[in-house]
């Protein structure tokens, strides 16, 4: 039976109804059926982290997740980070410090970092490294990424004001 299933997914605070084959992963459903192409395809086997998004606040690999299991969960993709036309403090810091080169790894790294800052607002460099251990970057050499997460953390006392302050 290869029919489609009707799923209700909560992505970036909005409810979406999609009819998809059950064997498609969340990564493919987001990109192909929902038009949310911020989440990137990499290895597609769980190794590179570029497909990372947040499920109930925790980083998860969308290339290994079946959307049918995630109905009722809060899913956040990179498209959900900016609010009201303002970049998230992490996005702002990445842009300022040149922490993205080709940018392919960036959505996944931003979301892993967002989950870290939600749990540990002022992380050490070691904690940042551990939180980003599952996200590979082939361009930057990581130093600027670590710097940018630190900068965002430094600026984030009341996350909402930061985008304002850094304008």
């Amino acid at each position, binding site marked *: 039976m290869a029919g489609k299933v009707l799923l209700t997914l909560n992505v970036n605070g909005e409810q979406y109804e999609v009819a998809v084959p059950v*064997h*498609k992963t969340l990564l493919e459903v987001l990109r192909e059926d929902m038009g949310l192409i911020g989440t990137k395809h990499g290895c597609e086997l*769980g190794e590179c982290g570029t497909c*990372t998004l947040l499920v109930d606040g*925790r980083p*998860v690999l969308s290339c290994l997740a079946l959307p049918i*299991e995630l109905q009722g969960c809060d899913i956040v993709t990179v498209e959900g980070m900016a609010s009201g036309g303002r970049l998230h403090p992490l996005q702002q810091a990445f842009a300022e410090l040149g922490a993205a080169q080709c940018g392919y790894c960036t959505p996944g790294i931003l979301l*892993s970092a967002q989950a870290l800052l939600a749990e540990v607002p002022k992380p050490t460099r070691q904690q940042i490294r551990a939180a980003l251990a599952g996200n590979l970057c082939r361009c930057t050499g990581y130093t600027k990424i670590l710097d940018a997460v630190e900068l965002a953390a430094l600026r984030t006392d009341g996350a909402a004001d930061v985008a304002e302050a850094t304008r």
Partner: protein
Amino acid sequence: MYPAQFDYHTPSSIQEAISLLTRLKDDAKLLAGGHSLVPMMKLRLAQPKHLIDLRKVPGLSGIKEQGGAIAIGALTTHYQVESSALLKQKCPILPETAAQIGDPQVRNMGTIGGSVAHADPAADYPAAVVALGAELVAEGPKGRRAIKADDFFKGLLTTAIQPDEILVEIRFPSWPAGTGMSYMKFPHPASRFAVVGVAAVVTVDGKGACSKAGVGITGAGTKAVRAKGVEAALAGKTLDAATIQAAAEKAADGVDVQDDPLQGSVEYKTHLLKVYCRRALEAALARAKK
């Protein structure tokens, strides 16, 4: 990249999951965190016609204390183990092990039951499961049975769980006062799986002699095993540096160390086993004395 097509089932009880397994037999696979199974399905190394998702089955997840022992539900994620206050206090080797698995994304989805049922030779948990002398509780059409860790890992990706059984829980017995435990792993630099991993649990009595020891080995061979030679070399002895060194020399005895172009030669892994065994014993002993 998609897995091949399958029918998806979400049983709402263990009994329903077992009757699905019994009915669908070899055409079905159980799905836990999907972090070993989904990659295998994408690579067509597994092509189940039916997936039975265990994640919505009540009663399969969680960590509880029962008469001194600790019971961990099969569907408990690596992250839940890593962050459990109860385990950090009562059985710290389990959070220590969980924290060394893969990366945060893998730990958020992967489950302890999926890891031991899959029995990857380079998986981390099996070393601690063997060292602590855990019991693995499987449930099938005939009811529940407890399988001793020493009888559980049968070979490469093979365990004592029968095709119509589900691993429901892992029980870790309590160890006496004066016990220290440690898991030491040499992670593969790319995959983070264990090239070798050694779990050491030692109990020292009032006079500083070793009254009980459990040592489990993973990574080097085709399955996790108990390092009987190491345990025998510790029994009853005062654990000074020379005794620990001599015991660690026996770490590879009885391990079917595999030659692997990506993971290392037999000689290399044998050497690593001895070094990591010594380090794990030293750390366990330091904690036992605290």
